[in-house]
């Protein structure tokens, strides 16, 4: 029995949408190098729709696979749909993650929200701040695993 599912290994070894969008409309970075994972997500947004998305990740196999899967889940979707993506959807789409790796999927969800929030902030678009809680491990301690 391998540590990761085939889907996780596929997304880890062949990550989708990896890289940078230099003229991104929204960029979100979550995580902490001290804790061993950072995800950065770039969004290209047109008419409230995510036209393009790319990511860069420093982290373990499941962090890279979770970022890759998250980009697949939101590409071409409306902002509203993207914001509705949960860490559980990322995990399910990956065919599961080991329990102590679940925080990688949380980071993936948070990176989407952080990128959208950045897009809203840049464009002075009002939004409900309570829907964008500060990510718990951007500052201070590492997430519980």
């Amino acid at each position: 029995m391998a540590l990761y599912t085939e889907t996780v290994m596929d997304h880890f070894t062949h990550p989708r949408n990896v890289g940078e969008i230099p003229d991104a409309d929204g960029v979100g970075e979550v995580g902490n190098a001290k804790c061993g994972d950072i995800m950065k997500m770039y969004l290209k947004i047109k008419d409230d729709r995510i036209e393009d998305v790319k990511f860069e990740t420093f982290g373990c196999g499941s962090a890279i696979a979770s970022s890759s899967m998250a980009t697949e889940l939101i590409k071409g979707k409306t902002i509203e749909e993207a914001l509705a993506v949960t860490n559980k959807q990322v995990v399910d789409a990956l065919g599961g993650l080991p329990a102590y790796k679940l925080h990688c999927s949380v980071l993936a969800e948070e990176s989407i929200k952080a990128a959208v929030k950045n897009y809203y902030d840049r464009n002075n678009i009002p939004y409900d701040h309570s829907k964008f809680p500060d990510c718990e491990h951007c500052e201070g301690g590492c997430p519980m695993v």
Partner: protein
Amino acid sequence: MVYADNAATTKMSRTAIDAMLPYMETHYGNPSSLYRLGQEAAEALQSARETVAACLGCTPREITFTSGGSEADNQALISAARIGERKGKKHIISTAFEHHAILHTLKKLEKEGFEVELLPVDPIGTVTAQQVADAIRPDTCLVTTMYANNEIGSILPIAEIGAVCREKGVLFHTDAVQAAGHLHINVNEQNIDMLSLSGHKFHGPKGTGVLYARQGIPLTNIIEGGAQERGKRAGTENVPGIMGLAAALKEACDHIGENAAKVSALRDQLIAGLSQIPHSALNGDPVHRLPGNVNFCFEGIEGESLLLLLDQAGICASSGSACTSGSLDPSHVLLAIGRPHEVAHGSLRLSLCEWNTQEDVDHILKEVPRIVAYLRSISPVWKDLASGKKQFML
């Protein structure tokens, strides 16, 4: 496949397997039984004890067979603590980068009221005899330091530390799990009172270990229930395992010099080659180093993803990253030598044995730089470092 994780475990040698088979197939008697089948097993056990004693430079009576290095470490520390507390001595000295078999047992003793002092480790990962001498107090009952570190390969000045302890009348235990079969051991020359080793680190079987305790040091049982091992370790002896351990240890000790020469030459090529990777650093003592140990930190990447990609490239290795252990923090050893968390997450340990080849080294030196470069290319941390937004640490 290139197996470069010999510090985790080793492939068994043909010699060790052949030494075990008869004790599973035909000589399967219980050494405690009085009929011949049992007594043959008892004689075999005695011969294994003599073999191991000869490898360590002690007497057979001073050898206790255990289920492994961890059990031996546990029993050594608990025994020394019991001796100490009977004399009102409850201060124990160790180091910050011991194996968890030591550190967790010390934590347990701390809860019982012992005072544990962990000596800091210097940046190359060693502890001096002077540090030990300065730390010893009238109420010190035990000094326990590893012979060589399992992660970064640093070899400690065991004989000197032993001499200091002997002079001050303090028991000295060494966890020699990484050293046995790879580095010279003579418990008398090196002033060692207690020593732990594990069979599977030198091509012997898993689940086998040895605790050496100098004659006159009373051991405290960890396992109760029978008169085996002079009453100090209950349970029917693992005769096949013990035979395998003894055969493997003898073979390793008989070839210790030539193996060390061969393995350290391969090791040095890896160290030289991996040092070419920008913003990398060797961990551990560059000179006093286990023959097979290579340990690097690569800035801007995380160790688990490196290991997974190495596995895809047919290379088995290990890392001190938190993600590989399921814990929050990266390796306590890397933190103890002063590596920041960010850097410690990007560590790689390759550990070689005498069966590794030049082709293995060439393959590793082709794959590691490629994979490190790839992971850096998708790492936002590396991008911030490369663009000058953040300062390189290595």
